[in-house]
């Protein structure tokens, strides 16, 4: 008994001494903050952040390998708590929720075969890409539902995942696991930053809207009587629903699938109806506005394009000032479009609503004449966006091109040729570059040389052979240089002087040229973004419209090339370009590369589509007459909304119930 007691006590003593010694010898210092941060994190170990678990994520935060907002599931509250432990600050981000991109279940979709195998989408996709004919149809086996660590997903009655936004934390696990990329993270910011993709279920009307409005969705919201939501959906892509309601030629209606049955849904009329409702109430509904945390941006030009860009920049958190040379904002819509086509009160109502978001504006100030480029670029805290439109805009608006050069030391070729000798800028002993090919460019080159320019360089977008075919006189003169098959990819300078341009030739080589003056041979000054490097004081142009996704961008003056419109002939086109400009600028201001979006729908892309509707009779039963000139009543709008087929790529409403609302 005694031996046993002594032995056990001794053993306990020896073991504890060894452990004490070992804990000293093998002591490893651990940052106590790792523990504190792990305590703050959710502890779900979901892995949405990309680390193995919450503890690994906490370690990464403490080692400064990750930022305090690492926890994608925790949202702003958790990020704030983590930042507190670390003594840092975080910015609030708009919450993101999962969103399913497929709206038609098996009973409504066309099927290739009936699947009866392993109950997992990842297995089902191995057999001819799943059973639905539509390439991006949801396979409905609930792999995402099983994967969701927060129970935010359920399988709805038509075998499509339904997201519970209260539970969804935006961790992105479902997006990761879905083999067809159907469920993705989404927020208003993401939606307004992205273009329509081939991997999305888009309706024909939506694909032909230059502003890319989610038309089926807003019609569905109107059908459900949610007029405010409908307006919100429209404003995710178009800040001018009322103006477009008045004057948009509605290319969407031309493509409406109902054309195969009777006549299109009054898409534009519905848009005008919801916008009119808001105006009658007299209260402009503001969207979610993030705190102003981005850059200060000067936008030159207060036309539709400039206002649209400003609107989206504000929604992305930037501080915008619009600079307009006339007394009021609105551009062509104010000074050219007649009152009976677009009443001025309508224009004022929408512009004032947009300005009430906190967008500053200065009118009656012509860039290049009343305000110098360097003061604008400094005022705009390094960023200046040019959205001035073309010579036509300035000529029509009683402003015969004398507003001075908006971009330092550069003129439109047309204004240069039209101006008399006394009005021309002095080019004595200057190095001049003329962009664009044509006899007018050659003519201008000769004038420059007569005026005493020390050197003239012509940049042609086509090859030497083509120039000869066009009967152009390209015989070499001293002081005149012609560069073929090239484009300008960058301008840069200091203060109010243009110093250098960068040319990209057909082999993709970059050539830098010293320059004093630039002449632009295109109908309009293209949309450009200028960025100031604070350290060197040099500014440079950024290729902001790379969003179109073609490989050969055509440089910053690529007005005539594919993808870019020659001029913004419709207000809805200007809206589309304005939004793309805002995206480019936002990416650039965050220091990210303005890379073109992938798999974007263009005119050339092959989209699975339906060109005939087999069961005509069932649908034609509820046809009714529609006269576009009528003013909509609520009843009429409901009727029109009811006529919408809620189209997807291939699916469409075969009975009255389905509504594309996801």
């Amino acid at each position: 008994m005694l031996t046993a007691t002594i032995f056990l006590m001794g053993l306990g003593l020896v073991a504890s001494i060894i452990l004490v010694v070992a804990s000293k010898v093998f002591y490893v210092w651990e940052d106590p903050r790792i523990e504190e941060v792990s305590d703050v994190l959710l502890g779900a170990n979901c892995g949405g952040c990309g680390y193995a678990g919450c503890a690994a994520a906490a370690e990464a935060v403490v080692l400064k390998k990750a930022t305090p907002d690492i926890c994608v599931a925790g949202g702003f509250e958790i990020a704030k708590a983590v930042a507190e432990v670390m003594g840092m600050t975080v910015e609030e981000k708009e919450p993101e929720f999962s969103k399913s991109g497929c709206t038609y279940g098996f009973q409504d979709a066309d099927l290739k075969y009936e699947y009866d195998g392993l109950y997992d989408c990842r297995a089902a996709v191995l057999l001819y890409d799943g059973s639905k004919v539509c390439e991006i149809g949801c396979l409905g086996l609930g792999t995402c539902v099983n994967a969701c660590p927060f129970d935010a997903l359920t399988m709805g009655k038509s075998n499509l995942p339904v997201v519970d936004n209260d539970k969804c934390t935006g961790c992105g696990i479902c997006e990761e696991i879905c083999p067809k990329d159907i469920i993705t993270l989404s927020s208003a910011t993401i939606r307004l930053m992205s273009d329509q993709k081939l991997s999305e279920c888009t309706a024909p009307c939506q694909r032909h809207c230059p502003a890319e409005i989610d038309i089926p969705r807003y019609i569905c919201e109107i059908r459900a009587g949610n007029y405010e939501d409908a307006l919100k959906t429209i404003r995710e892509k178009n800040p001018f629903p009322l103006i477009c309601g008045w004057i948009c030629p509605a290319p969407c209606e031309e493509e409406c699938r109902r054309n195969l049955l009777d006549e299109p849904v009054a898409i534009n009329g519905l848009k005008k109806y919801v916008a009119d409702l808001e105006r009658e109430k007299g209260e402009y509904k503001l969207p979610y506005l993030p705190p102003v945390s981005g850059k200060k941006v000067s936008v030159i030009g207060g036309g539709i394009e400039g206002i649209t860009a400003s609107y989206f920049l504000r929604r992305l958190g930037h501080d915008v000032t619009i600079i307009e040379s006339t007394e009021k904002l609105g551009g062509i819509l104010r000074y050219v479009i007649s009152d009976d086509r677009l009443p001025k009160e309508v224009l004022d109502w929408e512009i004032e609503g947009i300005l009430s978001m906190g967008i500053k504006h200065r009118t009656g100030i012509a860039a290049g004449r009343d305000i110098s480029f360097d003061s604008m670029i400094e005022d705009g805290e390094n960023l200046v966006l040019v959205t001035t439109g073309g010579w036509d805009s300035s000529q029509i608006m009683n402003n015969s091109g004398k507003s001075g050069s908006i971009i330092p030391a550069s003129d439109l070729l047309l204004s240069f040729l039209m101006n008399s000798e006394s009005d021309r800028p002095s080019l004595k002993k200057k190095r001049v570059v003329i962009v664009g090919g044509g006899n007018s460019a050659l003519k201008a080159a000769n004038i420059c040389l007569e005026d005493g320019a020390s050197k003239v360089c012509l940049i042609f977008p086509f090859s030497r052979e083509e120039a000869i075919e066009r009967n152009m006189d390209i015989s070499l003169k001293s002081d005149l240089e012609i560069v073929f098959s090239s484009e300008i990819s960058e301008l840069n300078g200091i203060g109010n002087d243009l110093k250098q341009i960068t040319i990209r030739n057909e082999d993709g080589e970059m050539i830098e040229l010293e320059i004093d003056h630039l002449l632009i041979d295109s109908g309009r000054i293209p949309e450009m973004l200028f960025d100031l490097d604070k350290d060197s004081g040099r500014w440079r142009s950024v290729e902001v419209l790379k969003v179109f996704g073609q490989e050969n961008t055509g440089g910053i003056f690529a007005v005539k090339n594919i993808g870019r419109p020659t001029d913004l002939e419709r207000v809805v086109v200007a809206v589309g370009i304005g939004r793309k400009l805002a995206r480019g600028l936002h990416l650039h201001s965050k220091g990210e590369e303005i890379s073109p979006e992938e798999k974007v729908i263009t005119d050339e892309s092959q989209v699975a589509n339906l060109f005939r509707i087999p069961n005509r009779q069932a649908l034609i039963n509820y046809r009714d007459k529609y006269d576009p000139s009528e003013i909509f009543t609520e009843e009429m709008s409901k009727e029109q909304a009811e006529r919408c087929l809620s189209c997807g790529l291939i699916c469409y409403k075969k009975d009255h119930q389905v509504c594309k609302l996801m």
Partner: protein
Amino acid sequence: MEYLVLAVNAILVKNILLAQYLGNCPFMGVSKKTDTAAGMGMAVIFVMTFATFITWFVHYYFLVAFNIEYLQTIVFILVIAALVQLIEMFLKKSVPALYRSLGIFLPLITTNCAILGVAVLVITKDFSFLQSILYAFFSGIGFALALVIFAGIRERFEISHIPAAFKEMSIALITAGIIAMAFYGFKGLDTSLKSILIK
């Protein structure tokens, strides 16, 4: 040759999980994914061998010497717990990579009955020192093998239609029983192997 028979016996015939039913807690608890199951298996091999190494000495040089063999269970538990703690500290300092992969499993098995069971078994079977170490090592391999097989099957349950009444634990227990029956087929393999080898 003797050791080959020992290995077959420890891994297949007298599998610690499926024939001796020791360590059922981790068998159910950490068998949802094959990679965690493999991690757990490695940790068990490691700790089992080390623990038997120490307890063998403790038994013959202390318990037998002081004539207090009846304290075996309590002493072994104490020694194994202290040992695992020590190993954990040592690994954290000296082999951080191994610590990270075994880390969370080590404390889990401090008081596991499979470890204690093997430590006691080698004493009751009167194994020599080398036999004891090898037996513990092979038992650990048997444990890892059974665990990984079981986890592989359970992973498939994730994507299978299982009637509501059988979901989760019930189907797991039934499966464990069926695997144990399959392992029952190895019975007698070691004795027949022995007789062949002796001839």
